[in-house]
């Protein structure tokens, strides 16, 4: 088989593009790894017993000591609401979000930010993030969960520490 010179050029360009993109992703993955990996947690939970399983017995923001993060935000999603529906977070705080669903698949998106994860019944979703900008953020469900899906939202206020 004879490979034409131009064909060779496009094959090499394709390969080089691929390597470039992948190395950017790889470096980012190394640098911000722990934040992005958190949502890949493989912790399980019985969706029927969420209310009686720690830490979901008391949803809300809690200060924690001697951890990589300052606060833990425990959230429970169910049709068509979040508990807590409203939460205040001090600006600059490093927060680990720990969340799950009691029924169907829901999304947990803080609109206009890169907090955007899936909540699935039976699994616990975790994400570490720092709230750097003050303001009132809209929390919304971005996975279809039934007829009230578009009413499923909450408020996250980042306030003075």
């Amino acid at each position, binding site marked *: 088989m004879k490979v034409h010179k131009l064909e060779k050029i496009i094959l090499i360009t394709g390969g080089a593009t691929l390597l470039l993109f992948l190395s950017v*992703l790889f470096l980012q993955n190394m640098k911000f790894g722990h934040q992005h990996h958190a949502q890949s947690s493989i912790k399980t939970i019985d969706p029927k017993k969420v209310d009686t399983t720690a830490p979901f017995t008391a949803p809300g923001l809690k200060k924690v000591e001697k951890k990589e993060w300052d606060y833990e935000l425990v959230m429970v999603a169910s049709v068509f609401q979040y508990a807590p529906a409203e939460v205040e977070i001090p600006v600059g705080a490093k927060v680990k979000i720990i969340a799950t669903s009691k029924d169907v698949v829901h999304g947990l998106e803080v*609109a206009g930010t890169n*907090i955007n994860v899936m909540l699935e019944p039976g*699994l616990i979703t975790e994400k570490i993030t720092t709230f750097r900008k003050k303001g009132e953020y809209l929390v919304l469900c971005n996975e279809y969960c039934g007829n009230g899906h578009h009413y499923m939202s909450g408020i996250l206020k980042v306030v003075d520490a």
Partner: protein
Amino acid sequence: MKIVQKQDGKLVEFHLFIAFFALAIGGFAGLLQVFVKTGKIVLPFNISYYQVLTVHGVLLALVFTTFFIFGFMLAAVSRTAGAFSEKTRLLAWIGFGLMLAGTLMAAWMILMNKATVLYTFYAPLQAHAIFYIGLALFFIGTWLEGLAIIFHYAAWKKTYKNMLSPLLTFMAVVNTIMWIIASFGVAGSIIFQLIPWSLGWHATVNVALSRTLFWYFGHPLVYFWLLSAYMAWYVIIPKVIGWKLYSDCLARLAFLLFLIFSIPVGFHHQLMEPGISHNWKFIQVILTFVVIIPSLMTAFSMFATFESFARYKKDAELFSWFKHLPWGDARFVVPFIGMLFFIPGGAGGIINASSQMNAVVHNTTWITGHFHLTISTTVALTFFGVSYWLIGHLTGRTLTKKINQLAIVQGMLWAIGMTIMSGSMHIAGLLGAPRRTAFTDYGGAAQAKKWIGYQLAQAIGGSILFISILLVLFIVIYLAFFAKKGVQEFPVAKLDREDEKPLLLLENWFLWIGITLFVIVFAYAIPLYSMIQHPSPGSSGYQLW
């Protein structure tokens, strides 16, 4: 001039009829959706947005595409490898019957509002069992049609030993093999998880497993659409412009790379979810990026074809060769618009698959905007461009001058409507607007105010697209029943030279299917094993619509 054999043609016509019927209803559903999302129109009779969305997704993403593609592939194989035998044709008819029966069952449940689960039917939302049984029959039907193509190909290979099969037939076989390997995943989930669960035989379902099996199928599904379009790009378009095949080897190699790398990549749809370790996600992101190579090979091939053709016409200027392309021929212009839209479409795809950037766009209307460029423009316009000669070829009617002009207008309208609709979906998505969501202002939230205006723009773009769909339907009906009788060519480009020695390695299926299965096992075996061995507690079903 070679004409598709009459009985094969009938089979193809039935496929196209179902496909365009689905386009009509699915397109109308799309129009209703963009209207609802303006917030100024409410659907009558309490019809829910999500039911209409289910109709739109199922009819366009599954029914329109699959029926069109199998029809097109059967036509391409019959045209290039000869008419089907009685037996293989019967097998394809049985497959078609099952696909149709399954589609009707699923459609019936959707219309009864017993399956408002969208076209992804994510558990634990639970549709009526008939919906899932219909889906299973649909997939079994596609396998029978796929087997008909493979048997016909095998018979050709027996007759013509030591020869490479015709390129279009080869491409149809690659696409069929990919479809069968990929749809085993979703069909397995439907047959072994969702049907027993919806009938009440199993109390709960493993949600993570069903999602993973869905996306094991869901990404190769988009390549199943694209490769069908690429069949037309590589082999048919060069002939339409009056030129030859650029390279037979390059085309085959690209298709084989797509076969290998389209399947083990489903996790890039699941980057934001728990239950899959980040290492496996990253490995599948790497595999996803490998398709950049055959994609660039395809882009190269197209432009090399166009440029070499125009330069042959003795225009050696750097860019002016461009004007020698047949800009008055709808069979070229309509798919060409599709090719142009694949440039932003493909770039968007690379963004979506980049794990970190995915966090910004995941499940926002950015994604909806993205696949309305790829499937709903690149692929759909290619399919329309194919229909504009294929239908006449089958019915013995010709693409007349006036209809040709109208078809070009159709393509232009599509380009305008989609630029507006998909563009505003992309922007709204970056601002955070969620996809698959009825009109809402979230109680007047400030962030939502930023994207609601773009929903008005989507309605304008969507309305233009609907007019374009009406034109497609008019042209298709005209070509099928009313156009001037005559012979419409089925264009197939050939190499101008025969290669000294055919590279038979390109059709060594043990090798290529072997590599494909090996990469799939590498990418999926361990995460799937742990999902099954250490399952998360199961979920009971919910009907929340």
